[in-house]
């Protein structure tokens, strides 16, 4: 189905793969990211694939004070906006965060606060229009705090709770809130991690995102097997879990 979509963090590997699928379905897309150069490259791909319209906006989304301005541009570009994908974020350096509260707060600003700011505004916009799909890429890391990346996990886990609340608020309406939780994905973000058998390509996750939105899912693990891995991780008693090296 053809959609009118805004993608925040459009040049992230997963979002690009979703955008390609939407483009072949003759969608209209508004792409937001920091680099104009990258956005121009992506735009050409999407137009070639059949996107009816592609507009691009450059912005550093960690600058929350500029959100209002960006959002009004989005609403002007796509007056019939029906789908939102939030795909930006940083894989925090846990060691640095542990040493500095400043670093921690800056990571939380990008991965948590700035997303809350956008989603709050977008949700109210959809509430007025009576419908819309909001998908946010969180992470399996948000399912339980672990010593190796709990700052990133906190941001993503916090987002999941926020989305849960929002979903409950709109539970009786045509507004769908989709929490996308990818596992290990082979992207530039994970370039320095040795790839094991659980790693999947950005294309697999990108396709999963499109399907999750089509099916109006609530919480989606990508690929599906992470639901079971995380079920096990979450069920380990805290007294044992705290001693594990995870």
């Amino acid at each position, binding site marked *: 189905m053809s959609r009118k979509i805004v993608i925040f963090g459009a040049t992230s590997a997963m979002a690009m793969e979703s955008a390609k699928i939407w483009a*072949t379905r003759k969608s209209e897309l508004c792409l937001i990211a920091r680099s104009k150069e990258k956005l121009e*490259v992506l735009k050409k*791909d999407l137009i070639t694939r059949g996107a009816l319209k592609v507009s691009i906006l450059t912005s550093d989304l960690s600058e929350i004070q500029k959100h209002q301005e960006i959002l009004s541009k989005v609403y002007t570009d796509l007056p019939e906006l029906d789908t939102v994908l939030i795909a930006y974020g940083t894989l925090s350096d846990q060691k640095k965060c542990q040493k500095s509260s400043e670093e921690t707060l800056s990571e939380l600003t990008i991965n948590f606060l700035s997303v809350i700011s956008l989603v709050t505004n977008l949700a109210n916009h959809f509430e007025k229009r009576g419908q819309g799909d909001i998908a946010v890429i969180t992470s399996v890391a948000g399912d339980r705090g672990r010593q190796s990346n709990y700052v990133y996990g906190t941001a993503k886990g916090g987002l999941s709770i926020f989305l849960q609340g929002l979903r409950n608020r709109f539970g009786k309406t045509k507004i769908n809130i989709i929490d996308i939780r990818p596992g290990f994905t082979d992207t*530039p973000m994970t370039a*320095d991690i*040795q*790839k094991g058998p659980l790693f999947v390509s950005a294309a697999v996750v990108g396709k999963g995102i499109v399907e999750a939105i089509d099916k109006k899912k609530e919480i989606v693990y990508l690929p599906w097997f992470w639901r079971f891995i995380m079920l096990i991780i979450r069920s380990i008693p805290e007294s044992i879990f705290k001693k594990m090296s995870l």
Partner: protein
Amino acid sequence: MTLESWGRYPKSTSTDIVHFSWPFSELPKDRKSFISHGQGRSYGDACLNNSGTVLSTKLLNRLISFNSETGLLRCEAGISLSDILKFSVPLGWFLPVTPGTKFVSIGGAIANDIHGKNHHVSGNFGHHVEQFELLRSDGQRLICSPKKNSEYFYATIGGLGLTGLIIWADVRLKKISGPFIKMDSIKFSSLKEFFEISRASDKDSEYTVAWLDCVASGDQFGRGIFMKGDHSDRKGRDKDAYKSGFLTVPFDFPNWALNSTSVKAFNTLYYNKQQTKSVTKTVHYDPFFYPLDSVSNWNRIYGKDGFLQFQCIVPKVDGEEAINLILKEIVSAQSASFLAVLKEFGDKESLGLMSFPREGITLCLDFAFRGEETLKLFRKLHDIVFDNGGAIYPAKDACMTENEFRSCFPKLQEFTKYVDPKFCSDLWRRVTDK
């Protein structure tokens, strides 16, 4: 970090992987040597660079433009043939040349100047590339075509990724009516019969290839099934014939799973499944071109030690006898797997200085890696190939010697002039004194 090629032999020990994901990206300044790594479908060590840097082009995978009148596609070099087909088949366009898997990148298709079942009609992939951009380690970006920077154009086609990094390419696609192939399967009971069918079929069929039983001996020696096909006029919506990931090999098979008894049983079943001499049917292009792509990670059936693929070409003169000798050697070793193909290449001259395809007969099959025993067999096979003036395909190779490599590529010395000083692969180190 370690990285594997498709054959999982030789193993990589430590590699620094850098994602090269945007056409305007620069090569990192602080690294010693580079090789590009697209889908990692080279079997041996052509796509590995131990102790150096591997440039992953997995995300350099976008389309740039497409002319639906002429079929000229411009795309980034990391895009896979599979992604191109998904885009182009619904619009009525197909790859001009395709190998037996669609999971290779455009960059890899150019760097290995790949061939397919239509070699006798359409030549290699390189014959259908109009131009490309080549990034050199000194930062130069060369647009290469037969008219512009032509020396780099001919050195990069088949150049094993050593002349620099291909950023994007213009490829001419081929018009089709729909996603179907009309195919005939014809059983043959000897090599002699194969050559008769092959010579007759190459005149009237666009695609030809044969599956060969490489364990059958005695009366059954040289038996197989010849397949020929042409694009069908039948229209139809393109749908993936296979649900991707539907069949998958989730773990390494134990070493004993593939042995001469299990392969013999499989081959006998496969040969006898077709009861009549010849069968005609219309099939989707996926099972015709890419039967193995339906099983993800099929390389795991060979166990954790991996496998070697042997692909040679021998000239047509005395070629039948050479293939006969090679097959005898293979059959008596009783260690081949069920995946073996035989095809005659046409006389279209390859463009690249280092292209593998040339007029002759090509045989290609897998051997599970069993250490010295396998290497010894390969030495015997190589001897027959080189005694007959043949060549080995570097994209599949993991054990050619320096001398053998030199005799495969008469233009090697000229090629060396265009190799980028900072590009190197494990294969290149192995077959040169670099």
